[in-house]
């Protein structure tokens, strides 16, 4: 059947199982929107800013495991997606971004709203395509989705000139795709896996160090099975939270700059680190020279470039984490006769870890007069549903959420880990809520970050997306202020946001509900009220202004040099 390029693009999305797209119309995508008008198989959500649309597609992808899709027009529409694309790229989120482009005959002529978006996004996409011929469109779309979701996932951009959207051709969607230059290595090497399990069972002080790769690779179950079989302690990165239940006694919580004391001490004193889908980010390792000085390191990752990039590795295993972990589990089963001896050897290690946990638990001092942000997060955890999805912005509230919310299931925390994008939380929650209309979706933000994409309350109201927006308001860009306090003699250069925003009125202006308090005694009541409301709600908590995220490893210090009280 003959169709125009715009229609073919939509048919391709449908074939890839896309049910929701986040997009903003404009001159060079008007033909796509004209087709969308009568295309009933795809829900279109109109954000108020293309950046938010891209974050929403990202949140949708993180919450569902499917490929998120965003559409933007050419020029400024396309450039507005860049932060969203870079955010997804840094956290390996599968996304396809479709941008309109000026007609092929005008490309390179400085036409109105022309921009080289392929060039601009080259460093922050997994791959990109400029479609020059409508006959190539279907194959390119197939390739784009395949590349976005396979191997180490990532964002793929498809730039679609206006004349290609108008041109007609026969629509044939390829069944399969074969890219000779792209063959991700998904199957872990059996001998390496055997060796790894052998090494692990010789260890006395093992730690499983788990990253976002386990969440992305849908391998949380395999990881939990392995950890329980070995009774090995598990620590996760921010991106790995939820991949192992934090309420399990063997969970050490998060490690790194604002990680738990016990997790950082365990890494420092470990003799065997098994890194699974984690990339030894500088926020995790602290000073590289003193990182895990006694440990042998086994590193499992689907992306060979992540291995040996930052730290020495004794045994690399390239492969899909789900495949590798399930093979490891089988191998562990084969060596049943060694289990009892191994478990006995680990007893003093568990005792030592328990000692660290007891000595310096991640805690805060409660106040009767001022709301402590950590207290709000604890209350949110207590009062929220077990399968609630939580997104965050970036900064102090993000770290308090990581420390105090307790994530027990994968894909329940959506947070910009690699890029650290302020303004991410609200639109990401919007994407997750669009995917799961019946689940509780909460975004925890600071007063700084939430104002970067606050306009999306309008999208929530228009689309009946009942996201609960929690603002921990300290009138500061809190994390930068914390650094200024600790390392720059309290010279609070441009981190104070004194202008009092009335968030309740702001919510009401958009047609949402708003609640606000500065009293600790009212926190629980407001959370309950907010959760009960059927639509989107802002819950503003005016919190202790100079509260710090602790413990903390100062930048450039070793993991065991934690500031516990300051």
């Amino acid at each position: 059947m003959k169709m125009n390029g715009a229609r073919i693009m939509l048919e391709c999305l449908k074939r890839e199982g896309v049910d929701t797209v986040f997009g903003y119309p404009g001159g060079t995508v008007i033909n796509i929107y004209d087709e969308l008008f009568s295309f009933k198989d795809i829900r279109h959500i109109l954000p108020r800013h293309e950046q938010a649309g891209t974050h929403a597609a990202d949140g949708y992808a993180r919450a569902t495991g499917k490929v998120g899709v965003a559409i933007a027009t050419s020029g400024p529409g396309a450039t507005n997606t860049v932060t969203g694309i870079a955010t997804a790229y840094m956290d390996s989120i599968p996304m396809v971004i479709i941008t309109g482009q000026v007609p092929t005959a005008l490309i390179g002529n400085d036409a109105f709203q022309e921009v080289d978006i392929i060039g601009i996004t080259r460093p922050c996409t997994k791959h990109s395509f400029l479609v020059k011929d409508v006959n190539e469109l279907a194959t390119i779309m197939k390739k784009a989705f395949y590349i976005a979701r396979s191997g180490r996932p990532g964002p793929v951009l498809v730039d679609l000139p206006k004349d290609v959207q108008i041109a007609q051709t026969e629509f044939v969607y390829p069944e399969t795709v074969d890219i000779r230059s792209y063959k991700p290595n998904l199957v872990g090497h059996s001998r390496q896996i055997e060796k790894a399990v052998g090494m692990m069972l010789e260890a006395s002080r093992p730690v499983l160090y788990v990253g976002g790769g386990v969440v992305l690779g849908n391998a949380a179950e395999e990881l939990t099975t392995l950890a329980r079989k070995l009774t090995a302690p598990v620590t996760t990165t921010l991106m790995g939270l939820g991949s192992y239940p934090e309420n399990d006694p063997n969970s050490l919580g998060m490690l790194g700059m604002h990680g738990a004391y016990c997790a950082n001490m365990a890494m420092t004193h470990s003799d065997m680190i098994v890194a699974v889908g984690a990339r030894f980010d500088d926020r995790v390792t602290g000073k590289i020279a003193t990182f895990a000085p006694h440990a042998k390191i086994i590193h499992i990752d689907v992306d060979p470039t992540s291995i040996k990039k930052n730290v020495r590795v004794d045994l690399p295993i390239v492969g899909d984490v789900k495949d590798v972990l399930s093979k490891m589990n089988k191998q562990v089963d084969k060596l049943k006769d060694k289990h009892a001896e191994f478990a006995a050897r680990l007893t003093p290690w568990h005792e030592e870890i328990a000692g660290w946990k007891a000595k310096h638990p991640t805690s805060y001092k409660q106040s009767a007069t001022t709301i402590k942000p950590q207290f709000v997060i604890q209350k949110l955890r207590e009062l929220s549903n077990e399968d609630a999805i939580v997104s965050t912005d970036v900064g102090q509230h993000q770290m308090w959420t990581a420390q105090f919310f307790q994530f027990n299931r994968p894909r329940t925390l959506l947070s910009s880990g690699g890029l650290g994008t302020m303004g991410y939380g609200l639109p990401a929650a919007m994407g997750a809520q669009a995917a799961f209309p019946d689940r509780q979706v909460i975004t925890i933000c600071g007063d700084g970050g939430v104002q970067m994409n606050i306009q999306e309350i309008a999208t929530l109201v228009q689309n009946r997306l009942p996201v609960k927006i929690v603002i921990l308001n300290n009138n500061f860009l809190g994390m930068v202020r914390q650094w200024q306090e600790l390392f720059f003699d309290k010279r609070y250069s441009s981190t104070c946001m004194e202008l009092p925003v009335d968030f309740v009125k702001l919510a009401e202006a958009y047609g949402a509900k708003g609640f606000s308090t500065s009293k600790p005694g009212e926190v629980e009541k407001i959370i309950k009220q907010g959760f009960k409301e059927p639509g989107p709600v802002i819950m503003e908590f005016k919190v202790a202004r100079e509260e710090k995220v602790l413990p903390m490893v100062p930048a450039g210090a070793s993991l065991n040099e934690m500031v516990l009280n300051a």
Partner: protein
Amino acid sequence: MQHTISVLVENEFGVLSRVASLFSGRGFNIDSLTVAPTNEEGMSRMTLVTRGDENILEQITKQLNKLIDVIKVIDFTEGGGVEREMALVKVAAEDQSRAEVLRIVDIFRAKIIDVTPKSYTIEATGNPAKIDAILELLRPLGLKELVRTGAVAIGRGSKGWKG
């Protein structure tokens, strides 16, 4: 340490800039870069000369392999390949220096490809070290202009890149 790397890529627009921006984005240096189509349809071959320690070279190779359009990466450092480069050199040649230029050209088995009363233009080919050597001898005679292609390299022996 200097490395010569062959990168076999899909012959599509933008591939060169992907490779180049991989280097610039990570602060790796490119000493020379050549690119042209091969005998295989739809495939181009780049020859890159770069430098770095073992870890940097490992990252370069892995990152190149990670690019979607890259079919194969071959590192020729261990003497597994033969390298050639071409240079076009315009050198001042008047009076007695004309004979000296001719002698050098003869010794290096280069060619004169353009002559004027005041200059010779020389085509020299060979491995990059040989090009360096001829330039060193020509420079004192008055080197007016120079263009080098950068190295191209191919594996030694009868086997092709597919093995």
